């Protein structure tokens, strides 16, 4: 079984699965149980400044989006940072760390954008023995109205400034958690790097309204008839998070900056995908909140099995493996030609491929009297929609055409050579091929 031991910023953990800063890591009771269940590390729920703790709403904090069979696909929340006294959290962190030296404990922090505030809290966090800190520049609701969380994460100059303070007053690793509620995630990542961040973690939650109560006309979760946007997370945000992770991983300015991947990770496969896109480890929240701490067992066994099958002996070997294959559209090979193919033995004759193609795409699927569905190669542009809507996995596949064959749609011979938009004759700005 592959060894999943991960060293992230010099912090060792028995596996790359950390619990993200969130309700599951708000107190000693939870974190101890998480470690007993097998989690490699936790990012303790965000601490605020000394003084009266923040207060939360006393009504619903979460809203949800469901798939078939009420499978939770997206969750949003309007919960704030920890609402327990700073001292209590610090004592608990100290106790748990002392008992779990082999696990990672990172402390998430969010205090006002003033040097003194950071100067005050950092020594106290250092005293707990925790392995590092994560700066919460991502929380998009509530705290951002008070000039913290996403309000900082949306201004690269602030990120750089606060990160620099932290590096100045704290000597263990500093991770900067980024908000996705910006237009170009490369900018805040670069700012964190300039400030001296040891790593970035992303994504924090996305501004969201999950539903509207059509009886009361209030957004959900509704507090006495009113709703406020929350932070969206869960499987639904995974594609957004992976794109952002890959952008930072392949950006020359930030390339090599360690990344802790977050966003809808629910299975070992999700984790492996984030890692392949450049994440050195991953953080999980919604999956644990949906199914409990036990899911980490599947993540551990699944990642190990897959690594064994592929011959990888460490997580490190997988980190960033897919990054070289993330490119710009203009570099995609326009001479790559494929056609959809329907495996008749697997087809259950639902006709969804036909409806999708006929109504909304290229009229490239034929339907016979006896409900046999076949691809019309003359029309098929290999868009993949039929594959995506088919309920049976691998029943429809896209088959690559061999160079030398004639594409029945265009009547042109499939070229062997790679050619992209930059040299395409239809491109007014094309450069002549060598």
């Amino acid at each position: 079984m592959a060894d999943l031991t991960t060293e992230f910023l010099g912090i060792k953990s028995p596996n790359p699965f950390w619990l993200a800063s969130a309700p599951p890591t708000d107190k000693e009771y939870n974190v101890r149980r998480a470690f007993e269940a097998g989690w490699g590390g936790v990012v303790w729920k965000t601490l605020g400044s000394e003084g009266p703790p923040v207060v939360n709403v006393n009504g619903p904090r979460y809203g949800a989006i469901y798939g078939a069979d009420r499978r939770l696909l997206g969750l949003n929340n309007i919960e704030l940072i920890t609402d327990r006294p700073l001292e209590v959290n610090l004592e608990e962190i100290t106790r748990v760390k002392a008992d779990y030296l082999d696990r990672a404990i990172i402390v998430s922090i969010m205090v006002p954008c003033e040097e003194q505030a950071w100067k005050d809290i950092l020594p106290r966090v250092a005293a707990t023995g925790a392995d590092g800190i994560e700066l919460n520049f991502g929380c998009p609701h509530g705290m951002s109205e008070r000039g913290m969380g996403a309000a900082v994460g949306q201004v690269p100059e602030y990120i750089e400034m606060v990160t620099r303070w932290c590096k100045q007053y704290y000597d263990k690793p500093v991770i900067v958690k980024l908000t996705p509620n910006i237009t170009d995630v490369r900018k805040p990542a670069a700012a964190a790097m300039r400030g001296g961040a040891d790593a970035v973690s992303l994504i924090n939650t996305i501004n969201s309204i999950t539903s509207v109560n059509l009886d009361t006309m209030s957004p959900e979760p509704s507090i006495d008839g009113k709703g406020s946007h929350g932070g969206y997370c869960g499987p639904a945000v995974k594609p957004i998070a992976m794109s952002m992770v890959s952008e930072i991983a392949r950006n020359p300015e930030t390339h090599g900056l360690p990344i802790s991947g977050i966003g809808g990770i629910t299975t070992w496969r999700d984790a492996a995908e984030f890692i392949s896109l450049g994440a050195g480890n991953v953080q999980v929240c919604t999956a644990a909140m949906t199914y409990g701490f036990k899911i980490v067992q599947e993540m551990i066994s699944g990642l190990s099995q897959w690594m064994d099958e592929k011959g990888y002996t460490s997580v490190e070997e997988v980190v960033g493996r897919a990054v070289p294959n993330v490119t710009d559209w203009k570099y995609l090979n326009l001479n790559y030609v494929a056609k959809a193919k329907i495996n008749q033995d697997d087809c259950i004759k639902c006709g969804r491929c036909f409806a999708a193609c006929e109504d909304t795409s290229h009229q490239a699927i034929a339907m016979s009297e006896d409900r046999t569905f076949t691809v019309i190669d003359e029309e098929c542009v290999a868009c993949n929609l039929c594959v995506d809507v088919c309920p049976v996995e691998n029943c429809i596949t896209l088959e690559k055409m061999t160079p030398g064959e004639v594409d029945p749609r265009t009547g042109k011979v499939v070229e062997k050579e790679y050619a992209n938009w930059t040299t395409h004759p239809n491109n007014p700005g094309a450069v002549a091929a060598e």
Partner: protein
Amino acid sequence: MSSPMTPGLAAARLPAEQLAENFDDLHAPFAPHEAAVASDRCYFCHDAPCVTACPTDIDIPLFIRQISTGTAEAAAKTIFDQNILGGMCARVCPTEDLCEQACVRELAEGKPVEIGRLQRYATDTLMAKQSHPYTRAPQTGKTVAVVGAGPAGLSCAHRLAMYGHDVTIYDAEAKPGGLNEFGIAAYKATDDFAAREVNWLLGIGGIAIKTGVRLGTELTLEALTDHHDAVFLGVGLGGVNALRSDGEDKDGVRDAVGFIKDLRQASDLTALPVGRDVVVIGGGMTAVDAAVQSKLLGAQNVTIAYRRGRDAMSASAYEQDLAASKGVRLMFNAQPVAIHGNGSAHEIELEYTADDGTGLKGTGETIRLRADQVFKAIGQTLTTDGGLALDARKIAVTGAGRTSRGGIWAGGDCASGGDDLTVTAVAEGRDAAMDIHDVLMG
């Protein structure tokens, strides 16, 4: 109090509570959560095979999607638009041979979407909430006679009333409903559903019902055609085929349909006698209904004897399994020869059969079974043809139920074609109504 062991015919073989449990809903209705889970399984197929398999062409993917989005009332409307007796059909349709057999998830996983139960969920929801969802078009001044208040007649009458015609339904029985009321196993239509459904259907208005009048006695086709602009016959099959075996006249030998009818109309099941050893002759749904209900009433031994093999049995595999699971013995390739007993049936003598390629024949080998009650379920026959042309002993029809005489339509079990299902009768009644409307308004 008697028991399953009590010899001869006896009532109250089981305690009242046990009988109530036995005759409760065969399939409990879906709770909202169950309906949500079941409806999520539908793939919303294109030109869905389940719709093709439905004799009434209900848009099944649409109504299931409507359930899944929390609008079961809209789902019911989708169903009723095609099949006004969608509530009963949801209970009695052999869905395992129709929509659910065609479901792509049957092909994919051997587990179809539970279309029948979802249909019941939708129709029950609307019927519990709303008196009647349809309104009539302005009155046309035309009148139509519908003979028979079974599924075909009710469906036809409703559609005609919706078009604005005035309809009078004539039925030989004391109350309307036809086989829905008298001929279906009690556990498929609990809580007086057939009668409730008729009342709900009549909510459209414009339909008068005259009961206790039978075509051929109190009614003549001539009088009907004289007094109405059109006539629809949905008289069903009133006669029962005879066994033509020795001893058929002994006490304890009777028609299965009569037994089922008594059972459906019984106000107290503990008062209904049933034999200790019951043998049902036949291979259709009526045979299964009679056998299963005999068992549920407390008969000790119940056997269905069918003269052909299992493959030829017209009761579905699902119905056969249901019978077997209730403890009914299925006996194939056995035909009745004689019923023995001193005045009352005591034993039935059956002869084994085989098909040597030239047709089914007795082998000469016989077997005797204890039988203090014998039910005949070997098919029903048309009793009144009104002088119309026949086809295979049924009223010959072409197109949407047109008979050999202009102005007279027929549908349901009495008409040629079709497969003697409630849902087919509903479709035929509906289609005849549309044709009648076209002709009348020509």
